[in-house]
């Protein structure tokens, strides 16, 4: 949050749809917006994350609802990574109960979360392509993303909101037919992901716009507590699936993807490689699914939870997501704390903008993978001329706006 008195003649304020249990802001709002970038002409001289925005009050809401309702409320903190939220919440509750899900359920949970990581990574790469001006590439990626959305619909019953996790297991099982269909969809998806990776690596414009843009020193990255692909792109092999080994991640082979350069290109490539690793993991889960019961009977689950506290972490597509639950015994939690990765990445990550030009700021912002849909508009305030105008972020990134 480097801010304070800076000599700037222009302020650009970016709206942020931050999937923190808070609530987004929209460019039409004139209140302090999420990220203010102070510019001297073209170069960024200062940036501050200004979070004076509204709040859905999810943590207070969770204290007023029963544990089982909280699973569904927590699943809706972020629309794109909801299976991970529900999973982390359910594992914290299972730790309170001391209940262990059956092995088949652990494998199915890994499958649901990895499918979600694939579609979240493809989405943010598509938004990055769109912000760089590649409309067609964006449309291709969104079309290929439909394959993994269909796979998720086959597995969990809904394209986006999985509602798949339940204390003691998962809520639906899959049979042979569904397994083969998901396998075929993944086989169709893999060459497409490899193709997009090649496009990102070889295309001259993408390379010029991404390489050495938003470069962060590794000690700054871990010093500011940035997480997930941003941390791994700086060379730190920190991945919650690796150190916590929850569900079936000890048995399903996977490697922690890291890169050294810690710039926007490294972050996007970490996400592409993680997509490929996720596809491999999904195939492994589909081939080695243990037999047995996976769906608990929701009518016989205990309603009252014992006293105690639990802290669960999960590797969300955007980074390490943590849930802390304190229960004083009873039907409702006493305190439920959700800390999403974007809280650290976006609020603490603004120092990465300093020194880059205005057109690079949206690129760096999207490389942090905020939950931003590219239809958002930014507010450009010119202090000298005293004008304010709304500009789609795409135009900012393409230098249309000076």
């Amino acid at each position: 949050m480097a801010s304070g008195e800076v000599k700037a003649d222009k302020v650009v304020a970016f709206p942020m749809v931050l999937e923190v249990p808070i609530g987004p802001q929209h460019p039409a709002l004139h209140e302090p917006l999420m990220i203010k970038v102070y510019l001297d002409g073209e170069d960024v001289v200062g940036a501050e994350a200004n979070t004076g925005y509204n709040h859905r009050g999810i943590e207070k809401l969770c204290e007023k609802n029963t544990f089982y309702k909280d699973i569904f409320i927590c699943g809706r903190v972020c629309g794109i990574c909801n299976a991970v939220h529900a999973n982390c919440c359910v594992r914290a509750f299972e730790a309170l109960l001391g209940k262990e899900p059956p092995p088949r359920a652990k494998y199915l949970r890994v499958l649901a979360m990895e499918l979600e990581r694939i579609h979240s990574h493809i989405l943010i790469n598509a938004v990055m392509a769109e912000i760089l001006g590649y409309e067609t590439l964006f449309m291709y990626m969104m079309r290929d993303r439909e394959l993994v959305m269909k796979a998720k619909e086959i597995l969990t019953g809904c394209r986006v909101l999985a509602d798949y996790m339940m204390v003691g297991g998962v809520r639906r099982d899959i049979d042979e037919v569904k397994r083969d269909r998901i396998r075929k969809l993944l086989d169709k998806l893999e060459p497409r992901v490899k193709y997009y990776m090649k496009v990102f690596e070889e295309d001259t414009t993408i390379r010029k716009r991404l390489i050495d843009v938003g470069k962060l020193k590794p000690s700054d990255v871990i010093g500011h507590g940035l997480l997930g692909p941003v941390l791994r792109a700086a060379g730190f092999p920190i991945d919650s699936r690796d150190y916590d080994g929850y569900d079936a991640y000890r048995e399903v082979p996977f490697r922690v993807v890291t890169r050294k350069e810690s710039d926007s290109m490294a972050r996007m490539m970490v996400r592409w490689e993680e997509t490929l690793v996720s596809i491999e993991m999904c195939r492994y889960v589909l081939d080695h699914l243990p037999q047995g019961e996976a769906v608990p009977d929701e009518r016989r689950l205990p309603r009252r939870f014992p006293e105690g506290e639990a802290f669960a972490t999960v590797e969300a597509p955007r980074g390490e997501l943590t849930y802390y639950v304190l229960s004083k015994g009873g039907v409702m939690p006493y305190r439920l704390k959700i800390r999403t990765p974007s809280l650290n990445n976006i609020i603490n990550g603004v120092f990465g903008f300093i020194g880059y030009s205005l057109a690079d700021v949206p690129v760096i912002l999207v490389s942090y993978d905020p939950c931003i849909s590219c239809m958002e508009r930014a507010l450009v305030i010119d202090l000298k001329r005293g004008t304010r105008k709304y500009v789609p972020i795409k135009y900012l990134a393409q230098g249309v706006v000076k």
Partner: protein
Amino acid sequence: MGASEGGELLDKVGLGMLKGLVTKAYLMKANDRVVVEVPNENLGKVIEELRRSFGKDGFYVSTVVGTDLIDQKLMRVDYFIYIAKLKRFLVLRLFTDRENPKVTSLYSLGLESAIPGECEAHDLLGIKFEGNPFLKRPFFAPEEFVKQGIYPLRKDVKV
């Protein structure tokens, strides 16, 4: 270091150097998180010890949880610190009284990764973190709560 079994636990997990500074050490559920209760004045020394043994880039503050223990008239702050070398979480637990909750901010001890968590705890629970210049209201809470001086996550607030 009061209870001895806390000492063995710290040695077992490789955090023996903290033994002299903490009052209690026990485990928390879900993958045995090590919880150490630290008096406010020892916080600086604990961070110094961590930095000495794991290096400046060896750990970061993952989560800051503020909890309003209304029946014991206490406000509790938990710092969840992830230590890369041990692949494990260390939880620094601090207690302060509920009426005027004050805690030394980890930002003032050089850990920028604590900023968002502390700002949120300040805004929603009213805990003052001394040495953190970024505390302000509203950080997340709506405008009306700031005007009325309500901290939404406190237990006595019916919202």
